[in-house]
């Protein structure tokens, strides 16, 4: 690929690499792993950039590929042991020094992967419920249920953390103009 041909990819790389790594790291719980996954996603994008550059949102394609790679690695179990040890380790490489932050990261890592994915895509990637449903290939109601249960589980785990426990389980508006109860049922 010549420098002229990959100018768009280089631009996308500069603009979105760090953001993508942050998003994937929030799901995997490991920044180094996320960097590896996002690098791999960009390498695959480079191999077919002439096609991808026509897409409205190539960054979404990269995120999907990186997420799929993460799931695939978990399934294959290549790094399952290391990941599980990391997830269950008492010592955590917290992104910030705050004890609240450490508690949040720990609680997030203890959630089921599906709930963690939904929370990250909604609150960190800032996708709409419908967009998450499309990306994950599940009904919107399932996404809402995962969000609701994920938030409730987080609230339960963070109950004793001073700045995070209070009202932590109350679900915010989900950007589709609807609200949901704790079971994921939509209320007008």
């Amino acid at each position, binding site marked *: *690929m010549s420098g002229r041909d990959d100018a768009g*990819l*280089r631009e996308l*790389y*500069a603009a979105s*690499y*760090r953001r993508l*790594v*942050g998003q994937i*790291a*929030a799901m995997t719980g490991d*920044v180094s792993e996320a*960097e590896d996954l996002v*690098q791999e*996603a*960009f*390498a695959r994008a*480079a*191999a077919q950039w*002439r*096609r991808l550059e*026509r*897409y409205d949102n190539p960054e979404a394609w990269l995120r*999907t*590929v990186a997420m*799929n*790679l993460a*799931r*695939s690695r978990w399934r294959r179990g290549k790094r399952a042991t290391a990941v599980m040890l990391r997830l269950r380790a008492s010592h955590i490489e917290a*992104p*910030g020094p705050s004890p*609240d*932050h450490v508690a*949040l*990261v720990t609680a*997030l890592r203890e959630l089921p992967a599906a709930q963690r994915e939904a929370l*990250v895509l909604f*609150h*960190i990637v800032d996708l709409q419920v419908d967009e998450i449903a*499309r*990306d*994950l*290939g599940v009904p919107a109601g399932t996404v809402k249920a995962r969000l609701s249960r994920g*938030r409730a589980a*987080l*609230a339960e785990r*963070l109950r004793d953390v001073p*700045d*995070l426990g209070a*009202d*932590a*389980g*109350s*679900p*915010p*508006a989900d950007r589709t103009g609807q*609200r949901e*109860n*704790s079971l994921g049922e939509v*209320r007008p």
Partner: protein
Amino acid sequence: MTGYSGPDPVRRALQRYGEDLVEQVQLPPFEEVERRRRRRRNARGGQLVLALAAVAAVATALPLALVSGASNERPAAPPVPPVTVTVTQPATAGPITLSDVSFADPTHGVAIGRRCDRGNSGCPLVAVRSADGGRSFDAPSTVARGDAPGASKVAAYGDDIVYAYDPGLYVSTDGGVAWQPVTVGPSPDSAWSVRDVAVRDGTVTVLATAGERAHLLTGVAGAPADSLTDAGEVPGTTGDARMQRPGGDVNAVVVPSTPPQVELGAAGGTWQRRSLPGACVAPSLSTPNADDWWLACSDRDGGQVYRSADGGKTWTMTSPATSAGDTRVVTAVSAKVAYLSGPESGLQTTVDGGLTWTTTLRPTAAIGEPHVLDGNAWVVSGDVVWRLVGSIGSGRWEAATVG
């Protein structure tokens, strides 16, 4: 819980967590991406060398073991000679990397690919012909010089007509020996890029994109250059539109929108849009008959395969998620039988309507899309054309090396 009642500290904390993670990340130089891409490409080549080494090791050790086993006395183990694998190539011509194969009938077919010659002559597009059903192939003929990117495809028709595209369009009227470029009329906004070619009933139909629009171009099969005419834009299409496979019926043009769409209609006629299941960036549709449709939807959770028994009105999922990052193409034979091919995952087969899939071919080089015709099947990988011997459910694949 009745609803949102104030600031949500968990939400704020999650957002702050995401921001903190991004702040931790350093942007590596872009060359890291290029290096990784080259490693992936080289790894595939390395797998071939390792496979050759393994075959050579077995071929060396087996006779020794047989000699040893034939004697009643157990002799002292002879020293095992070192195995040296030397991959020799012609002095001037490099290996051919095939990308597609097409048979006009069970006997006559053409495979196409690129041969990167040593030196600075680029990687010309070359074709190899078979007149014995794919058991052997003639010496390659040059379709086009230059080093155009993109996967080349081929469509054979009748006794001697063959189209090749890469995304330029070339035609041969002598079975693939001599080739000439096919030029078409001016495009609406940018150069034509040929996506798919189908030849049926003496008419060639070309799906070509110009910018973000897809058009059908039609003409008499095998006619000389400047003979194709623009039959008009396929509505709702983008630059990623593809014809359904295997291309014999051109009435379905797939658009990888969200969700994927298929435009049903005819060149110059009216079109009807129908939504497809899934959320993928590379849908592959195959319609062996009017009712039985198959769809491979890649790049979402690794990919899924769907099947419809009512011409695409309702769909059922037929397989679990496949490996991520590998674009799959489905080539259906009937309601029960279909192939699923992916460059990295090989060739899978189902004979029970997608209930179970079996990996029937997994070569070391990237595999192409199978061509099926009257119970026969061929598929390319590296410099090999694989031919199905026997029935699809119980047959085996035999290799014919070209070049």
